[in-house]
């Protein structure tokens, strides 16, 4: 398959070559057959070599004159004919080559061959993205800054051109092709050992299911990350073994629930997604009063679960009677256009504490918010924003809280791919409750600062050379508190906090620093950049490690140090 382009070229060049050979043959034969006269007036015949020599330079229009003797008129007549014959032959051949270069099929084949070569040469881990859109573009951008490589499969060639103009830190190979073709995954290198994950974030759940299914069939070890907004597809995806099934509406519902019941946990979650570790006043949803949710679609039904669990009084407004009819008995769903003043008044908007515009139409959401604010200026407003392109309009509307589904998905997917420990931590802490969350936030704020950084690392030869060698050679238990020590003074501690340790099946949330280090531990830290730098030095460098362990400089000679025996 690799040299398809070469075969294509050869096959297309058949006719031009045929034409060239024939024109040359006719010309040469004529030159040999037609008698000439030499300088002494005797008749002669050109030999085949003479004829070949003459035609060769005549045909290429170089023109060295007549050889070996001046031509007779019959010869000249034939030459005149030959000039046109061979020149047409050459032009045709050159024209064919130019057409070939412009040929789309050939270009596609060459692009494919280049793509395959890139995939073959790629040795570091990479992630396959199916579909290139505003979401995957940002995820790829984040990942490439972290040094994680991506590969894109996209049906639309225009988007691939767009991708090639983008300035990613690392090159992102892209392949044009329809995902329904099973060969496409193979071309993208799914069977390779260093293919870590396949990501599919289409709006269309059926499409995601299709991708997940073919990806799992091609390589069952690869991690599959897909979006599913409907429960039935979510179930199917779990059955076929998709590792991460993301539902943006469930994330939204969970966040609404968290901000009503345990704002500290929400704050930690948002911080891990990249926001500062503060809870602004407008992040606090009103706990009293009635909520009006406009739109009883996928987001509405997800919100319903969150609001009910938080014990909030709510009412839905839905434009389509069919969707409204799906509601369970006892749920309050009113049928009507939510930006209609009458319906809003009927839903008691002047008494309500909060309105959530959750339809999939951005403009409708905006007009709902505007209408509600006109009646009740005190109301807390939440709007769903579907497309990143509308951000400016939403900013201008002064909405208390804008839920951007695309951004949510971008952050979530990035976390899953690049910071798996943070992702796991978010899931685990949800069961801990508000008081635990408050403790963690206080610890971080008092111990570190208002907006700590995070770091994920692993205790192995690659990330903690000195530490691993020490543990292996002395069999001595080293507590995690060692890593907190400062390199300039070992008695002092760096502002750091271990949030989470994964040790095989064991999981420790907020462990005690006296916990002994084991090789293979995966750790999520919160702290300052300087603290992380110190820690990495201690883990990797035998001198630094010796200093913080013993409290003094290493006195051995360099040779001894290299054989290392503390």
């Amino acid at each position, binding site marked *: 398959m690799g040299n398809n382009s070469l075969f294509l070229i050869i096959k297309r060049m058949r006719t031009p070559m*045929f034409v060239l050979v024939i024109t040359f043959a006719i010309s040469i*034969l004529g030159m040999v057959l037609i008698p000439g006269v030499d300088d002494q007036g005797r008749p002669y015949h050109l030999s*085949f070599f003479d004829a070949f020599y003459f035609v060769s330079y005549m045909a290429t229009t170089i023109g060295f004159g007549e050889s070996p003797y001046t031509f007779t008129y019959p010869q000249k007549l034939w030459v005149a004919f030959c000039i046109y014959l061979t020149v047409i032959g050459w032009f045709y051949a050159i024209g064919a080559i130019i057409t070939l270069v412009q040929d789309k099929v050939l270009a596609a084949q060459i692009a494919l061959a280049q793509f395959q070569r890139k995939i073959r040469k790629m040795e570091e881990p990479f992630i396959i993205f199916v579909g290139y859109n505003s979401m995957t573009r940002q995820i790829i951008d984040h990942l490439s800054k972290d040094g994680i490589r991506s590969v894109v499969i996209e049906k639309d060639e225009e988007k691939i051109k767009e991708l090639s103009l983008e300035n990613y830190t690392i090159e992102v190979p892209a392949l044009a092709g329809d995902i329904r073709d099973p060969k496409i995954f193979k071309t993208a290198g799914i069977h390779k050992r260093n293919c870590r994950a396949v990501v599919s974030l289409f709006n269309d759940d059926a499409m995601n299911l299709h991708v997940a299914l073919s990806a799992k069939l091609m390589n069952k070890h690869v991690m599959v990350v897909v979006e599913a907004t409907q429960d039935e597809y979510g179930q199917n995806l779990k059955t076929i073994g998709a590792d991460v099934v993301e539902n943006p509406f469930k994330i939204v519902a969970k966040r609404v629930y968290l901000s009503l019941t345990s704002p500290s946990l929400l704050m930690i979650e948002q911080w891990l997604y990249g926001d500062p570790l503060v809870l602004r006043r407008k992040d606090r949803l009103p706990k009293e009063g009635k909520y009006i949710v406009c739109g009883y679609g996928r987001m509405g039904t997800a919100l319903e679960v969150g609001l009910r669990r938080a014990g909030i009084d709510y009412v839905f407004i839905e434009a389509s009677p069919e969707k409204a009819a799906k509601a369970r008995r006892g749920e309050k769903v009113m049928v009507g256009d939510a930006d209609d003043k009458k319906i809003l008044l009927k839903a008691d908007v002047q008494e309500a504490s909060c309105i959530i515009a959750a339809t999939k139409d951005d403009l409708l959401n905006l007009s709902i918010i505007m209408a509600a604010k006109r009646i009740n200026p005190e109301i807390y407003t939440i709007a769903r924003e579907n497309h990143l392109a509308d951000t400016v309009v939403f900013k201008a509307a002064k909405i208390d809280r804008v839920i951007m589904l695309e951004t949510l998905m971008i952050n979530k997917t990035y976390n899953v791919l690049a910071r798996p420990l943070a992702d796991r931590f978010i899931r685990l802490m949800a069961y801990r409750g508000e008081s635990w969350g408050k403790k963690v936030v206080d610890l971080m704020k008092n111990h570190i600062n208002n907006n700590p950084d995070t770091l994920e690392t692993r205790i192995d030869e690659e990330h903690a050379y000195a530490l691993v060698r020490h543990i292996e050679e002395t069999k001595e238990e080293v507590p995690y508190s060692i890593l907190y020590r400062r390199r300039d003074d070992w008695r002092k501690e760096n502002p750091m906090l271990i949030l989470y340790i994964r040790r095989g099946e064991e999981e420790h949330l907020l462990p005690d620093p006296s916990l002994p280090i084991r090789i293979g531990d995966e750790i999520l830290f919160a702290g300052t950049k300087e603290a992380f730098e110190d820690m990495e030095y201690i883990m990797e460098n035998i001198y630094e490690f010796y200093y913080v362990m013993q409290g003094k400089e290493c006195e051995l000679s360099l040779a001894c140090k290299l054989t290392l025996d503390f």
Partner: protein
Amino acid sequence: MNLEKVIAGFFIILALTMNFGFFYGDPTVLEQHNRYELFAAIIVNLIATIYKLGDKTQLGAVLLATSLVADIQLIGAASIWALGEYVTGMNTEVVTAIISFSGGALLANITSVVLFTGDVLKSKR
């Protein structure tokens, strides 16, 4: 019936027969070998080679190889002829070299035709 197969078959077999026509005769006597026949053999061989280009099958590759061998042998024969005529002068050694080169080409052409016929016989349609 496949028109492309007809044309290819025609040129492959014509290449063999032309080649044989030139080769047939006393290998030491140049007069028994026609120069026009050598020219025609070279042209037909080149065309046959072109028709074998771009075939991705295993057989296609071997056919192309035999054709290339025949081309090289025949062009070699023509070059020796030109060399003999203009540089060294004709003698029995040169003449035998010309004829034996075309004999080599003949063998390659026979292989080519055998392979081609074999392939045709093997196919069921």
